């Protein structure tokens, strides 16, 4: 029979990150969130703990772990705060992973050690103001000229693209026309500070308020030809595979948020009284908490299953989509119920459940909307 317990390495990592999240993140994150500030010191600590290097080999400065280790860490962080979790997720899975998967040895040596240590963040720019779900509709262009790429266009909603420690953004761009007439899409590394590359002011967001998100503009931005990441024309396939993995990581964040709702409610219902009883004595409240726990458990099994297929090297597209869909639903439902259980206090920013409520929504959108997940599942079923 399959054993669903974590191996001791993962369990020890989980405990370490749990301890970090409750001792270091929980006491300070409300303040960062309120002022929409990026938590540089927490990111630096996470860097020293090796969290940004989890799935990468030691030869590039990584921890020699795997993608599941990253997911376990993300779940524990998101139990306390999603902004910190998404900063890690995007840093590893969207920033560093494309370099590791598709980069030359030279590109890996140039970027990975600093990404793994958390001293530098990389970003991944796929979404454009005109569309995200239909990524093939990319209009940003890159033209090869005199040994350089000349890039023009814009990107929207790019995580980690404008921090003081952002080193580069990897952008997808149209580099030509394929034999059949379709767009040839490639991926190019654009270092921060390259002339013509501007990072817009940060967005005012509903949630993820200590995560860094910007629109980007490219006006005759020139980078050397060697900044092409992987094979020319393979950009579309590259980001599809990056996003498949990323969905498991986002699912882990959703599970963490859903679990955080259970944690907070268990504490609250044992203290809060109404009509002469602890509210946890009321069956209506107990059932809400029981449903929250069930959703969390189911979603966790879904992402474990997807990750286990991925690590075995089997196709996992369908399972990753199911995990993300299940988990983002669980996160949304739990956040709604948790804020309800907290009554008026649930609407106050000083309680974490209010933050969870605001942070849950994006999970149904980022790295593929829930509709896109359903499209992927249906397509995989042959529909």
């Amino acid at each position, binding site marked *: 029979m399959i054993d669903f317990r974590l191996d001791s*390495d993962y369990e*020890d*990592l989980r405990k*370490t990150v749990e301890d970090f999240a*409750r001792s270091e993140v929980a006491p300070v994150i409300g303040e960062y969130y309120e002022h929409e500030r990026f938590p540089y010191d927490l990111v630096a600590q996470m860097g*020293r703990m*090796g969290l940004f290097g989890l799935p990468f080999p*030691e030869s590039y400065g990584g*921890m*020699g772990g795997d993608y599941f280790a990253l997911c376990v860490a993300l779940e524990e962080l998101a139990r306390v705060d999603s902004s910190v979790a998404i900063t890690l997720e995007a840093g590893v899975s969207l920033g560093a992973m494309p370099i590791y998967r598709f980069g030359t040895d030279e590109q890996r040596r140039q970027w990975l050690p600093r990404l793994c240590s958390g001293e530098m963040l990389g970003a991944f720019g796929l979404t454009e103001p005109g569309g995200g779900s239909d990524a093939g509709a990319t209009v940003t262009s890159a033209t090869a000229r005199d040994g350089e790429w000349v890039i023009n266009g814009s990107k929207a909603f790019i995580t980690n693209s404008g921090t003081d420690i952002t080193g580069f953004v990897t952008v997808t761009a149209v580099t030509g026309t394929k034999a059949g007439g379709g767009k040839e899409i490639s991926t190019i590394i654009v270092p921060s500070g390259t002339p013509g590359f501007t990072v817009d002011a940060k967005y005012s967001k509903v949630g993820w308020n200590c995560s860094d998100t910007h629109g980007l503009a490219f006006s005759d931005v020139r980078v050397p030809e060697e900044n092409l990441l992987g094979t020319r024309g393979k950009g579309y396939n590259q980001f599809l595979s990056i996003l498949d993995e990323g969905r498991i990581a986002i699912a882990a964040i959703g599970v963490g948020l859903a679990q955080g709702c259970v944690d907070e409610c268990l504490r609250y219902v044992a203290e809060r009284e109404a009509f002469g009883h602890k509210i946890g004595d009321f069956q209506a409240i107990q059932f809400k908490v029981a449903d929250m726990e069930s959703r969390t458990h189911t979603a966790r099994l879904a992402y474990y299953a997807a990750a286990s297929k991925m690590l075995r090297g089997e196709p996992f597209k369908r399972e990753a989509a199911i995990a993300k869909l299940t988990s983002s639903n669980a996160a949304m439902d739990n956040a709604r119920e948790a804020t309800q259980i907290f009554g008026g206090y649930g609407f106050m920013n000083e309680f974490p459940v209010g933050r969870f409520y605001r942070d849950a929504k994006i999970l149904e959108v980022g790295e593929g909307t829930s509709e896109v997940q359903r499209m992927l599942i249906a397509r995989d079923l042959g529909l």
Partner: protein
Amino acid sequence: MTNIVVLVKQVPDTYSERKLTETDHTLDRESADAVLDEINERAVEEALKIKEAGEGEVTVLCVGPDRATDAIRKALSMGADKAVHVSDEALHGSDLVATSRVIAAAIGKLDSVDLVIAGNEASDGRGGAVPAVVAELLGLPQLTHAHHLAVEGSTVKVDRETADEGITHLEANLPALVSVTEKINEPRYPSFKGIMAAKKKPVETYTVADLGIDAGEVGLTNAWSAVQSASPKPPRQAGERVEDDGEGGTKIAEYLVGQKLV
């Protein structure tokens, strides 16, 4: 090359509810999550800093039941090199004198120990005497309650801080024993690399007999003191509320004077 031994203890997590068993009033280890005591994390951190600044080897020494291996593994995953675990049914309920004798005997088994580092007091028993007793038994200088520690050649210097005496500067020749307070440092979190490496590090396990100690000298029945009864801490009373009707400041001052706080 400094050989450092760090004394570590597994304690119930202060985040969980801690109680004593009904039967013999010893710690109910099943009722709470067990963790490496935070003060010991700081002791390990201090040892690692000394090792990283020069050369050395850090051995963690733990007296505790089998499941204390988790606490030992945590110390190893932070970067300690090896461990000694004294585990024996006979030790159940040992008082701090017996425990100290076991610790001293285990340290005696190790080659050329230069420095022993302990926490000043565990967060469960809070006797706060083990470091001093161990130092006495081993004939080592004891530099307790250190909030700063430096090894320079063959001497160790510490700043000792206590509520009564303020700060005293102490110095001793190695080998010596130092106990540290929670102000000494901020312990690191283990990295995943450290976690994976910890499993491959050597852990030597001893029974009390291996240390040449008779089982009749340790354990609950041989303790010098016994817990007769225990009751949970009474719930915290609601605080006294002072309404400011213009006299607020005076009332607060009177209250503080009444409590002998000012």
